[in-house]
């Protein structure tokens, strides 16, 4: 490599770092404005517009991630007003990692959705604006540092998610969307109630500032309880999980992928961010145990339910409920000096790997529905030759979900496990291991159906429909990325280290 090239590379790097601050609002505004433009022009008149908008969004995300990786956390004061008066956009390593995940999955969903929805006879006219606004909202949730702005974003997430879940407009999808809508509205109002109390106590809505001003008193406790419960309802954490399975499994496959891998995940991200940045004063060992216990129950419950489902998409949806439990295990572990750093890395890593694997699994299931017209497990016997590429994606995704080495899922679970063992928290270690084993049970059950020989006397009534090339390969690429993260985890962990929460870094010195 010549030095000239290296120089120009260096200059590009500097330029990228400098423009990262501007990329912060752009990751929100670019998909939003594209969505409005798509609606204005009409998606049939300009089918190239949504992919172009997605590409631009990814470009803004890349600039931002590059800036965080090289220049540390980025911040932009909207309107030029300092918080608490104004709203700050703030991207640290955690936010950058999630924006990267959203960019990858978002691009995949964008590429996949066109052929899939057209093939299923569903209209793209409203899907595009809704999906692009959802993407903008997701990025907004990751970078907003203002409690009330987050409320607006959460409502946007619900209002874009519910119609995507209801797109099929049959009985099951409609009732699922209604249930989702009602619980999500309840959840956001509980969240807003908590925010009202926090503002009443501190006079500020800025995350870091509220965290600094907050004292461990009754107000903070009730606010934290309301906010956590509200977000749990929106993220389908265990006792409030009922809406997730019908909503995610009745949505069209690309929407399921977005809802499971990104939308519900963004809410769990918010739970973690609020506990680590706003409520660390309340994060005592018993509190951690309480939330970790809920996570542990979710892991077991979700896995057991996933084993009993007769259709593929409900299996994947229940797996989401189980996998979110791992993220909650962070809270009991992060208060222990020995476990804090690996648990933090493990949880964030798990969020990314689960997103990739879950999107891959839902898109592979979508391929199955596209080709066969159903996703009943019984009917999948002997179809591997027709859907070999999709089945490979499904197998890889499930391998990652159960944490089989050398996938990314293995690395994330290993990090959580090593944290729990280092702090001698045997219960949490056991939960991680049992959860992995249970995931293996439902994963192998599905794979057994898929790879089984066709039943005797099986006659092919109708040849499976041919898959468009792009639909065939999108899930594989996502699943391979999840695999790759198991092989090479360092870039992600380094990115994550920028602006790690104080509760994690305080033990490092």
């Amino acid at each position, binding site marked *: 490599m010549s030095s000239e090239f290296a120089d120009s590379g260096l200059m590009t790097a500097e330029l990228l770092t400098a423009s990262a601050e501007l990329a912060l609002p752009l990751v929100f505004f670019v998909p939003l404005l594209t969505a409005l433009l798509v609606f204005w022009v009409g998606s049939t008149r300009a089918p190239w517009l949504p992919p172009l908008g997605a590409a631009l969004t990814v470009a803004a995300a890349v600039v931002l991630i590059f800036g965080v990786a090289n220049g540390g956390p980025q911040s932009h004061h909207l309107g030029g007003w300092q918080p608490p008066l104004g709203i700050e956009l703030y991207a640290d390593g955690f936010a950058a990692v999630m924006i990267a995940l959203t960019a990858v999955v978002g691009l995949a969903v964008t590429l996949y959705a066109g052929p899939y929805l057209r093939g299923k006879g569903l209209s793209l006219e409203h899907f595009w604006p809704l999906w692009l606004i959802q993407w903008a909202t997701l990025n907004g949730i990751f970078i907003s540092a203002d409690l*009330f702005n987050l*409320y*607006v974003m959460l*409502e946007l997430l*619900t*209002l874009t998610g*519910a*119609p995507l879940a*209801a797109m*099929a*407009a*049959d*009985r*099951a999808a*409609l*009732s*699922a*969307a*209604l*249930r989702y*809508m*009602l619980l999500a*509205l*309840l959840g956001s*109002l509980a969240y*807003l*109630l908590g925010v*009202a*109390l926090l*503002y*009443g106590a501190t006079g500020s*809505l800025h995350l870091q500032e509220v965290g600094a001003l907050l004292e461990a008193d009754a107000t903070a406790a009730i606010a934290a309880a309301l906010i956590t419960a509200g977000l749990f309802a929106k993220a389908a954490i265990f006792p409030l999980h*009922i809406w997730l*399975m*019908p909503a995610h499994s009745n949505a069209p496959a690309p929407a399921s992928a977005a809802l499971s891998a990104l939308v519900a995940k963004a809410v769990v991200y918010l739970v973690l961010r609020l506990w680590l940045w706003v409520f660390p004063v309340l994060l005592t060992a018993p509190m951690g145990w309480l939330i970790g216990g809920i996570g542990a129950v979710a892991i077991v419950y979700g896995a057991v339910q996933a084993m*009993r*489902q*007769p*259709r593929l998409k*409900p299996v994947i949806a229940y797996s989401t409920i189980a996998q979110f439990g791992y993220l909650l295990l962070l809270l009991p572990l992060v208060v222990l000096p020995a476990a804090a750093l690996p648990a933090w890395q493990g949880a964030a890593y798990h969020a990314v790997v689960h997103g990739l694997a879950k999107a891959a699994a839902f898109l592979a299931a979508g391929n199955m529905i596209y080709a066969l017209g*159903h996703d*009943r497990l019984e009917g999948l016997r002997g179809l591997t030759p027709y859907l070999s590429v999709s089945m490979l994606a499904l197998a890889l995704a499930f391998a990652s979900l159960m944490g089989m080495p050398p996938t990314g899922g293995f690395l994330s679970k290993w990090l959580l496990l090593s944290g729990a063992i280092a702090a001698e928290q045997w219960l949490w270690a056991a939960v991680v291991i049992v959860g992995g084993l249970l995931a293996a049970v439902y994963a192998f059950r599905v794979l057994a159906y898929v790879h089984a020989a066709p039943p005797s006397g099986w006659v092919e009534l109708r040849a499976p429909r041919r898959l468009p090339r792009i639909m065939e390969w999108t899930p594989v690429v996502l699943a391979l990325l999840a695999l790759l993260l198991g092989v090479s985890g360092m870039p992600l962990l380094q990115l994550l280290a920028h602006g790690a929460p104080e509760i994690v870094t305080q033990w490092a010195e």
Partner: protein
Amino acid sequence: MSQAAFYALVAGALTGIGIYGLITQRHLLRRVLAVNILGSSVFLLLVALARRHPDYVDPVPHAMVLTGIVIAVSATAFALVLARRYHAATGLTHLPEDEESEEALAPGLLNRRSLADRRSGGGPPPGQPERRQGARRRSDEDRRSDEGAQ
């Protein structure tokens, strides 16, 4: 007790009523009403807390509530449209008790049936006495005006 504290208490009580209604009522319209009561209680708390300062009224909660009211109206309107469509597709005015088991039993069947219902405006399927005819027949006048609209 100050006026602000008094209204904050009222807001707390309204929250309780809203939650109670949302859990105990099953009719969709009633649940939407309960969500609205709940929302207004949160708004009331915010505005009451804005009133505590001896020398000024805090405008930030007012702006937040104004935003919240718009969001509440949007969500209500969408929820009602969704409820109407659900009613048209199923004839029900409440959500089924236990969706998961219903789903697990005959997912494909349910989907196909409701689709067919919508297309043909067909009668109630056997075994579901609470389901009634969903789609109202268009009156000629309506149809004419609609076709003119298209």
